[in-house]
């Protein structure tokens, strides 16, 4: 199949359309704006609807309304805009509505900068909005993977009736890469009819009410338990990660996602030529986090290095997975500055040269 050279943001838009996304609501913000522009151009060509909202707050609530009416819907923004959408994300989760939300992350906090960042990890995976809820969070490390994950994101949103966040760093949005858009394929999960959607009540089903309000505490607790059971199923069934090869010798385990994983992979090639046994465990699903895979790989290594464009957010999940069993090191950059391969190489060599690690301690 033909490959197309395309910018990440545009590829994300095209992948969404091919996944059956019918409506897009958004607001301009760098470095996400090309998704908005692409959708404004492309969606009408395929019979879809594009609305430029007055704010991210409005866009995310339009998303809620359209999701409740049973259509495949999407919005995209970048960090400060995603913060504004957190109200609707909590309502989407509470009312169990399927929607895909792309965050092309930039550096924060506050207005921060327009260069890439990975500092929205905690917001995406631990809540962000109010209440006990989780979003499925998927993080691509290439434009091709962004395209593939977008396809699955809509199916997973429908299957779980839950918002799915696609967490791209600004690098994924802005780079151009050759991409293959897959042919029509069946959904990655079995999908039923949306008989819960507000499509007009003909009397042939219970009245559809999209709602997250339960004034009776017992009913609200029961609703919460139902949601938690769903998040438990996601944790059991939706873990996605890549590497390391269980057959390879392993002194240093590198854990990273998105652009930082890409940089780390380059560094590992350099380290390999120097005879260093280091390998990457790349988290693709951030919620659920591949805790077991990280713990298993860490057990084979002498030390762990976490690489992020943040002050250490995924680091917390790695610590929870590995505990005190191995020393865990962190390499991070902020302000929109990418981690460079030589930074990873230096960190890896320094960690493995430390006396405690050389003697094989830490087990």
């Amino acid at each position: 199949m033909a490959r197309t050279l395309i910018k990440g943001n545009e590829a994300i838009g095209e992948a969404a359309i091919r996944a059956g996304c019918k409506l897009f609501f958004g607001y301009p913000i760098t470095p996400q704006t090309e998704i908005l522009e692409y959708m404004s151009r492309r969606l009408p060509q395929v019979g879809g609807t594009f609305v430029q909202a007055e704010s991210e707050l409005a866009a995310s609530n339009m998303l809620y309304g359209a999701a409740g009416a049973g259509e495949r819907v999407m919005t995209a923004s970048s960090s400060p805009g995603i913060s504004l959408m957190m109200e609707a994300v909590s309502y989407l989760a509470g009312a169990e509505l399927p929607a895909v939300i792309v965050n092309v992350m930039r550096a924060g906090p506050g207005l921060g900068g327009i260069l890439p960042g990975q500092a929205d990890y905690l917001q995406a995976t631990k809540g962000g909005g109010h209440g006990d809820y989780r979003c499925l969070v998927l993080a691509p490390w290439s434009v091709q993977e962004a395209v593939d994950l977008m396809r699955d994101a809509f199916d997973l949103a429908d299957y779980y009736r839950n918002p799915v966040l696609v967490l791209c760093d600004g690098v994924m949005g802005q780079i151009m890469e050759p991409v293959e858009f897959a042919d029509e394929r069946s959904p990655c999960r079995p999908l039923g009819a949306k008989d819960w959607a507000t499509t007009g009540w003909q009397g042939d089903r219970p009245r559809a009410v999209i709602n997250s309000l339960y004034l009776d505490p017992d009913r609200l607790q029961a609703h919460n338990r139902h949601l938690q059971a769903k998040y438990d199923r996601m944790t059991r069934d939706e873990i996605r990660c890549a590497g390391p090869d269980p057959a390879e010798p392993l002194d240093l385990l590198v854990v990273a996602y998105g652009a930082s994983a890409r940089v780390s992979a380059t560094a590992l090639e350099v380290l390999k030529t120097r005879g260093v046994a280091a390998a990457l465990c790349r988290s693709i699903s951030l919620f659920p986090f591949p805790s077991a895979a990280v713990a298993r790989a860490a057990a084979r290594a002498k030390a762990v290095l976490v690489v992020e464009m943040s002050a250490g957010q995924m680091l917390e999940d790695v610590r929870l997975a590995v505990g005190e069993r191995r020393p865990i090191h962190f390499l991070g950059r902020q302000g929109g500055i990418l981690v460079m391969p030589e930074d990873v190489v230096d960190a890896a060599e320094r960690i493995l040269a430390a006396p405690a690690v050389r003697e094989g301690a830490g087990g």
Partner: protein
Amino acid sequence: MAEIAAFAKPASLEATPTHYCPGCSHGVIHRLLAELLDELGIRRRTVTVLPVGCSVLGYDYFSTDCQEASHGRAPAVATGVKRARPDLFVLCYQGDGDLASIGAGEIVHCANRGEKVTVVFVNNATYGMTGGQMAPTTLPDQETTTCPGGRDVDQAGYPIRVAELLSTLRTPAFIARGAAHTPRHAIHAKALLRRAFRCQMEGRCFSLVELLSICPTNWGLPPAEAGRWLERQMIPYYPLGVLKTPDGPDRAPLPLATLPEAAPGSAR
């Protein structure tokens, strides 16, 4: 048995008691809307959007598909529903705290985009659900729990006239203000609502009816007295009538008065 038929419950209302306080206008307004959904035969394609406020439990009362919306966001949610399914009739039911305060941005842009939805704006000059706080529509010197000495216009400004404000926009099709505190006013309100519903059914854009209503509980007045208070205090500030119709040659906003300090040579 014509009398019984006249007082039958509209099919568009569920057979359930409401949580509204005695004398509250919501019950009357719900009935007017339900009667119209029945009479126009659109109940089965209606989605009612109910945001935070006294009417948040409206999904238990309206016998239609419903979406609850977060505080102030009903026009955005309604936009999403209507854009997803243009064949549906989308009814948005908002109070004054919801529409004129926290949702002021959403209502202006929903109206200005000309979304083909109908908004019913219930103005009782206070926050009912949370127990009578100052709203953007609270009248000067009106006492509430957050302006115990009366609304001080030096601090809070003058109340917002939503219908007039939105009528300055070029796009909307129909904007009117009625009241629901007497049978006579309710009949007039129903006629306004019918015209607003018709706009949406005919594929015209945004329509809104503001309805002045009483809140005896939070005003601290018996219902009959509350009605007189509305008559004396609210109607002079919030005049009743039609502010914008779809019948004009274009969607021009209300004409501005000649600007008193227009720049020299300004064309008029």
